[in-house]
């Protein structure tokens, strides 16, 4: 009987709190549709790793470490960076770089909207986080889950749980965060600015050469970023070459789905009560929000800055679409533009900036890896 009651007697308050957090993540995934593909496995994982003496994670039994399946998966898929990189192939296969090739000027907004990353690194440093941990927290502002996980795996694997939760939760909350941040730094008149869309024609050859060329150019500048950018662009090459449709299809669906299932539940291995329920976790979640807000503000202020020199004004909200959360951010911007003026159609610009954000977030991740020692 004692053996049966052993688990019950070993429950701690912190573990119960983690069950509740797991339940909240599952609720957000199911009821609110907040990034369900990742939050649901993470929520369930958070519950199973916090069952006392759970065999899912490594336990000491009679002085011997018995490895749990989640720790084995963690070593195989996260420590080796395999899972986030494989997801990049699928993401690359999903992205159509057409809008950015038709209107490359939008690349600038993708760059500007990474400001939140570096601002948050400074803030995390001020709050006492060591540089590598601060960099991992700042990269939440990439608004790109796999990039955040990739950088955190390299610099602060112990913080992977809260960083992943923050990254994916705030991506789901873009429709709430961005309108508020944009209104903070723009006037109604600025939000009503109309823009004329004049796309360049793009050949299929350009679409095929682009992923190869961008890998070489970025790789020469930030060699550390080669795995990130190369896997993303390899996926895109599968899509654009038009002779590997079945591989592109597999990358977009089966590959991404399988890895997402494994990634979510494996990250949960880092959500063990004793390590997770700390003030540090709360600070990371708060700093993630700061990163998203300052990405938005950085993009908008950059667009306003450009308007000082341009005769044909840019709607500054386009700057906010330069984050990587695709296509949610572009949709939010178009919705806001139409709310101010129902004849204002800036969706194609916003989509261009949003696609630029996907490229720029990966570049930012690579630069952080290169600059932080």
């Amino acid at each position: 009987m004692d053996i049966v009651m052993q688990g019950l007697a070993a429950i701690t308050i912190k573990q119960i709190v983690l069950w509740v957090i797991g339940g909240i993540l599952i609720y957000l995934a199911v009821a609110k549709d907040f990034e369900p593909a990742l939050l649901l496995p993470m929520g369930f994982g958070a519950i199973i790793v916090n069952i006392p003496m759970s065999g899912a994670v490594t336990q000491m039994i009679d002085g011997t470490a018995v490895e749990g399946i989640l720790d084995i998966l963690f070593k195989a898929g996260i420590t080796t960076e395999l899972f986030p990189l494989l997801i990049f192939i699928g993401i690359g296969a999903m992205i159509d770089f057409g809008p950015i090739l038709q209107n490359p000027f939008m690349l600038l907004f993708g760059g500007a909207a990474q400001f939140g990353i570096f601002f948050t690194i400074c803030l995390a440093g001020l709050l006492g986080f060591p540089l590598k941990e601060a960099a991992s927290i700042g990269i939440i502002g990439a608004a790109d889950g796999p990039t955040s996980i990739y950088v955190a795996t390299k610099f602060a694997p112990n913080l992977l749980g809260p960083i992943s939760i923050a990254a994916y939760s705030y991506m789901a909350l873009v429709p709430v965060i961005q309108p508020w941040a944009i209104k903070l730094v723009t006037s109604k008149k600025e939000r009503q600015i109309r823009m004329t869309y004049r796309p360049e024609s793009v050949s299929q050859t350009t679409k095929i050469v682009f992923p190869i060329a961008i890998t070489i150019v970025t790789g020469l500048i930030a060699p550390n970023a080669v795995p990130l950018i190369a896997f993303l662009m390899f996926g895109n090459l599968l899509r654009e070459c038009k002779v590997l449709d079945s591989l592109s299809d597999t990358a977009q669906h089966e590959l991404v789905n399988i890895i997402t299932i494994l990634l979510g539940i494996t990250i949960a291995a880092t959500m063990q009560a004793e390590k997770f329920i700390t003030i540090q976790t709360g600070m990371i979640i708060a700093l993630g929000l700061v990163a998203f807000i300052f990405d938005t503000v950085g993009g908008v202020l950059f667009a306003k800055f450009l308007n000082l020199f341009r005769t044909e004004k840019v709607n500054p909200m386009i700057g906010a679409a330069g984050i990587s959360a695709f296509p949610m951010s572009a949709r939010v911007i178009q919705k806001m533009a139409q709310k101010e003026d129902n004849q204002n159609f800036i969706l194609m610009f916003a989509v261009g900036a949003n696609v630029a954000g996907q490229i720029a977030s990966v570049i930012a991740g690579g630069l952080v890896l290169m600059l932080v020692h």
Partner: protein
Amino acid sequence: MLNMMSLEETLPLLVEGMGGIFVVVMLLYLLIKLLIKVFPAKENLKIEENKQ
């Protein structure tokens, strides 16, 4: 208590990071312009013709 000393490390990172992003972005802008010049849209027609 704020760790002001950290700014010695993080501020240069902010400047170099944002500077680096804009350098790469500008290079990509030029790259796209070059690709569009070298492979103009009418290339599509040639690919279509070759397929036929």
